[in-house]
């Protein structure tokens, strides 16, 4: 097949009608640019909003829930085998919040290839003393380094540094709401009282803002060691293990497996935050529909222009066929024209889309809920650009296919005899 010839014929037909061609290409450019800009912005916003909760939420959380034993003595005992037992208002017994055997569990997690990482945590209920007033709060004992690697902990520290937690003994990072209520700043000391009545003094080394106000009013962070000391527990006391998987979709299966294997409670992210995925997918669907609609409109533009071109060039088509070009050759010429419009318009669209999203990315966007964000979030994912160019080629191919097929079927005899 002589593609060079077909390409040169297509090119000269295009250049002979370059104004129309340009209009068609601009249609595609507009469609692709809007598509790219819209999706960059939408997915950027989606990632930001999802990240607000999802990034900080472990994919699988292992914990121990306080609940009454499912096997009550009366049903275990052989004495009452033949009876129905009714017990109302069962209370939990002497249960511990601790995850048993956590050393073994953590070793097993380290070996599991599906796991990206995990952070052991301790949750401790305490009172922060502000003069005579006690404020209810929670201290999360954690490993700041791993917490940053897996859950972007340091992004939410608006004052101070997350690493200091590990280095400065008896230190604490307070939620911004909590710090305000306690009237403390970095370097100040806070007094806390544990439920058991012990009192401690901790040094504030950072302020934390998650963007969820309720959360920031009660949460604070300390190291695992500090928290164990406050609670008066041994150094193997862990209440939570927050796991991040490599593939979030595997989380429910892994949660079920671990619950059985380690005899703990396990909650996966999908169960904990089902509504977020719905929101993201709806926003994404809307953006894609708008983008694709624009491309279809551009496709109709190309269809029209090619149709007109074919009517204008009937004579040329007839003579090409008379001198030995087959219907398939003629079809290829017009599809080449269409695809050239598509690829040129598409590439321009990618460039303009990139510039447009750059522009959007400079629009100020400040909200107290998102301390690290100053402008609209833009997702510069190359995948969006690939989808854009593929879409532009598909629509222009389809738009060109039908006129091209018609051109291929032109009967030269009818044209030539009609003169």
């Amino acid at each position, binding site marked *: 097949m002589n593609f060079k*010839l077909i390409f040169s014929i297509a090119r000269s037909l295009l250049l002979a009608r370059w104004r129309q061609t340009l209009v068609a290409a601009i249609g595609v450019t507009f469609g692709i640019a809007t598509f790219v800009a819209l999706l960059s912005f939408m997915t950027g916003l989606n990632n930001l909003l999802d990240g607000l909760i999802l990034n900080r939420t472990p994919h699988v959380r292992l914990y121990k829930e306080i609940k009454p034993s499912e096997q009550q003595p009366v049903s275990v005992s052989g004495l009452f085998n033949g009876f129905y037992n009714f017990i109302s208002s069962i209370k939990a017994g002497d249960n511990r919040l601790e995850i048993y055997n956590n050393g073994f569990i953590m070793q097993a997690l380290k070996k599991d290839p599906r796991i990206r990482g995990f952070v052991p945590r301790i949750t401790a209920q305490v009172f922060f003393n502000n003069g005579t007033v006690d404020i209810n709060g929670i201290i999360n004992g954690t490993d700041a380094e791993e917490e940053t690697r897996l859950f972007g902990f340091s992004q939410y520290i608006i004052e101070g540094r997350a690493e200091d937690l590990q280095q400065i003994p008896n230190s604490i990072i307070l939620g911004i709401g909590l710090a305000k209520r306690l009237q403390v700043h970095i370097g100040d000391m806070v007094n806390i009282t544990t439920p058991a009545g012990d009192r401690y003094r901790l040094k504030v080394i950072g302020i934390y803002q998650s963007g969820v106000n309720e959360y920031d009013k009660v949460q604070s962070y300390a190291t695992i060691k500090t928290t164990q000391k406050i609670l008066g527990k041994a150094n193997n006391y862990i209440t939570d293990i927050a796991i991040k998987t490599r593939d979030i979709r595997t989380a429910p299966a892994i949660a079920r497996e671990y619950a059985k294997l380690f005899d703990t409670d396990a909650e996966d992210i999908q169960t904990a935050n089902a509504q977020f995925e719905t929101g993201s997918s709806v926003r994404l669907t809307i953006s894609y529909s708008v983008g694709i609609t624009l491309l279809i409109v551009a496709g109709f533009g190309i269809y029209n222009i090619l149709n007109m071109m074919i009517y204008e060039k009937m004579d040329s088509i007839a003579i090409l066929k008379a001198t*030995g*070009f087959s219907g398939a*050759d003629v079809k290829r010429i017009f599809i080449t024209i269409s695809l050239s419009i598509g690829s040129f318009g598409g590439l321009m669209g990618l460039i303009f889309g990139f510039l447009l999203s750059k522009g959007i990315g400079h629009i100020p966007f400040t909200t107290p809920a998102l301390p690290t964000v100053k402008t609209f979030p833009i997702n510069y994912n190359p995948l969006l650009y690939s989808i854009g160019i593929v879409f532009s080629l598909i629509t222009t191919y389809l738009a060109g296919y039908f006129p091209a097929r018609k051109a291929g079927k032109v009967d030269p*005899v009818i044209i*030539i*005899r009609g003169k």
Partner: protein
Amino acid sequence: MDTPIILEARHISKKFYDPSEFTVLSDISFSINKGEFVSVVGKSGCGKSTLLYILSTMDTDYEGELVIDQESMADKKEKELAKIRNDKIGFVFQFHYLLNEFTVLRNIMLPALKQDRFSEKEIEEKARQKLEMLDMGKLANKKPNKLSGGEKQRVAIARALINEPHIIMGDEPTGNLDKKNSEIVFDIFQRLSTEFNKTLLIVTHDNSFASRTNRLIEMEDGRIIRQ
């Protein structure tokens, strides 16, 4: 017979069904030998153009058999027929059908580029030779819409010759030309026949043109009445 048969029509018939059944050609049989300069004459509507388009392989809706260069055209696919037109048949129509997007030279080169047998350089050289032969060397780089009617028709002839076809077919090639240009075109055909031993089949209603060819096929009402 020493000279081989280039083209043979065997019992070719064709009917139109629209608006009502009408026989355009009935049982046409003849053959053309290499080097012959044949003209087909007849009144308007006698079916001579229809016959030419069947012989050119562009019209495939007929009964009977067409043999070009010892090869039957029956049961050939559209693509194969296109190849035969490209390799073996050169066309000159009443209207020139040059592509205004290309230069004169490029227009002439197109069928050869499609044939893809020679390199682009060789094809360009050949196209220049054809133009020189027709005294048009200086027009090579002009666009066809800058040419006069006679010049356009001569370019169309050069295009018909580029692939060294077995037969050159013409459908009223002088129909749109004045006396002087008609003479020029006839002289070219005459030269092709005598000097280069080309085979020509020309449909015309110009009697002075037809009378000067080697052989005359006269048609009436879809039949050959004299040949």
